[in-house]
């Protein structure tokens, strides 16, 4: 059936509905039974795939977190809360949690930067907006592993361009990603750099949705760019700002790729980096336990802690939003 034909029948359908309304369908008609069967059939592929590869695995992970794997792939034995008790006493877990939380908190600094850039790009009369947007968006589409490689080179202590530029102003830069004092902050910078373009696009869409007459009225009252930015853009943009902060926190809590490539791979080779303990995140720890040391039960418990953390921090953000997010 062609589209124009369908459009034609669409008009008929509207006419039919107009004359016959209100329509009462019989509750258990054959047509309705057939429709239901079609409904189940159409959701079946995704539904079964999600059940097998996503929903049931969550249940299994929860179960695994209460077990300990037998030797040589033997059966799992139920150990109750043992994994969780071990986890609470594990200083590596505590350090990974602290690192992850610090990375997540500092990463939020990228949002005000994105808000300012978005506001600048949305100024009336701006030219070249799409060029800027393309350039800011480049890191978003670049493979994170490649991004991490590039920054490894920029951060190189001996030959890196960053330390060379610092030396021009008389500063001796550290070995950024191999120095426990700087490694985490070096990752924060890369994280902000990578996500700026994504935040920018979301925030620009938010600013474009703000009615123009607010700005016109403010301009008539003599408000300049800064006043307009603080009094109109930021408050009216707060739902979008809230959205990007939630996305940012959830993403930061799952940081893995950057740690893996910047710090130096898996297992023992990563641990030779003196900054390792300051850069290990929860998901890296999960990877290490699940696929390097093969402690699946313990790794499952780590994953459950991550879930708890995400739920808690997201819920906290939703509670706090009442204080600062304005829905027009």
């Amino acid at each position, binding site marked *: 059936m062609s589209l124009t034909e369908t459009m034609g029948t*669409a008009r008929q359908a509207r006419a039919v509905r107009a004359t016959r309304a209100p329509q009462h369908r019989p509750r258990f008609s054959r047509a309705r039974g057939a429709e239901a069967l079609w409904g189940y059939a159409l959701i079946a*592929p995704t539904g079964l*795939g999600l059940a097998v590869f*996503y929903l049931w695995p*969550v249940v299994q992970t929860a179960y695994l977190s209460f077990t300990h794997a037998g030797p040589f792939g033997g059966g799992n034995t139920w150990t109750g809360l043992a994994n969780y008790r071990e986890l609470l006493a594990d200083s590596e877990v505590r350090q990974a949690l602290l690192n992850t939380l610090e990375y997540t908190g500092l990463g939020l600094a990228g949002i005000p930067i994105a808000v300012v850039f978005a506001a600048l790009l949305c100024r009336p*009369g701006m030219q070249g907006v799409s060029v800027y947007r393309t350039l800011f968006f480049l890191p978003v589409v670049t493979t994170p592993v*490649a991004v991490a490689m*590039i920054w490894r080179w920029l951060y190189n202590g001996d030959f890196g*361009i960053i330390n060379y530029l610092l030396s021009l102003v008389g500063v001796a830069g550290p070995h950024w990603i191999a120095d426990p004092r700087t490694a985490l902050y070096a990752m924060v910078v890369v994280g902000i750099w990578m996500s700026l373009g994504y935040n920018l696009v*979301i925030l620009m869409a938010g600013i474009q949705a703000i009615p123009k007459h607010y700005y016109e009225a403010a301009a008539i009252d003599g408000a300049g760019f800064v006043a307009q930015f603080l009094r109109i853009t930021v408050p009216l943009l707060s739902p979008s700002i809230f959205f990007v902060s939630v996305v940012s926190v959830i993403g930061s809590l799952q940081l893995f790729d950057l740690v893996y490539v910047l710090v130096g791979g898996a297992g023992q080779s990563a641990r030779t980096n003196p900054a390792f303990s300051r850069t290990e995140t929860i998901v890296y720890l999960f990877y290490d336990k699940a696929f390097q040391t093969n402690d699946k039960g313990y790794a499952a418990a780590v994953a459950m802690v991550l879930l708890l953390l995400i739920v808690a921090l997201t819920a906290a953000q939703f509670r706090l939003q009442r204080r600062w997010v304005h829905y027009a």
Partner: protein
Amino acid sequence: MRRPGLLATHAALSLGALAMVGPFIWQLLTSLKTLPHATRVPPTIVPDGRWSNYTQVFHLLPFGHQFLNTAAMTAARTAGQLVFCSMAGYAFARLRFPGRGALFAVFLSVLMVPPQLFIIPQYEIIARLGWLNSLAALIVPGLFSAFGTFLLRQFFLGLPAELDEAARLDGANPLRIWWSVMLPLARPGLVALGILTILWSWNDFFWPLVVNNDPQKMTLSAGLASLQGQFMTDYPVLMAGSLLAALPVIAVFVVMQRQFVEGIAFTGSKA
């Protein structure tokens, strides 16, 4: 209208843009230098056209295989999600059946859970099927997406109901309506989902790293990361490799910029 204030705005934005692009430019320049040249202090900018760094990548890694693996994974996941998610999204948006709301809520619940909660059991399923180190391992779990279903359902809800009702009065069954009426109308939504799936699949790292550790079967991300340790100091070659690995998605982005940006903005507006 040109105002003096815009000049300062351009200055600030240019500075930001330089910070975004500078690392890529330095990557490109380094990729064309010899190692002694790249590690010279103070550094010099002009490269010496050492294109052999790019061929060197193919000697260190089965780069061609890894490229094809990544392309096949990306293509299959994207095609699968477009078909399956649009079917499910259409059913949730338009068909009435008992338990629809509850099933949809179950789909959505998958969105709330971080992937680390699926990965160990997924790995065990793949291992039991004997699929480790295969294309199937890279593709199959990625064929199903709660996000894609949600995105397309929202899109279908925004289309006028008269069109598919008319097709139904003409006696077309839902499968036919989905294929001949809904899919052509849903092109912008399909493009948005397609682009996001291409981006996420090509750049996926954790899952391919875990299931395929045979270099011939790895994806580009995992292959590139495996250069660590042994070759981690040959920065010009690493820059060449990471540039080649990222180039295809960057190319798709440059060609389809508007759709990329709209797709990303769409996820923001639907969340």
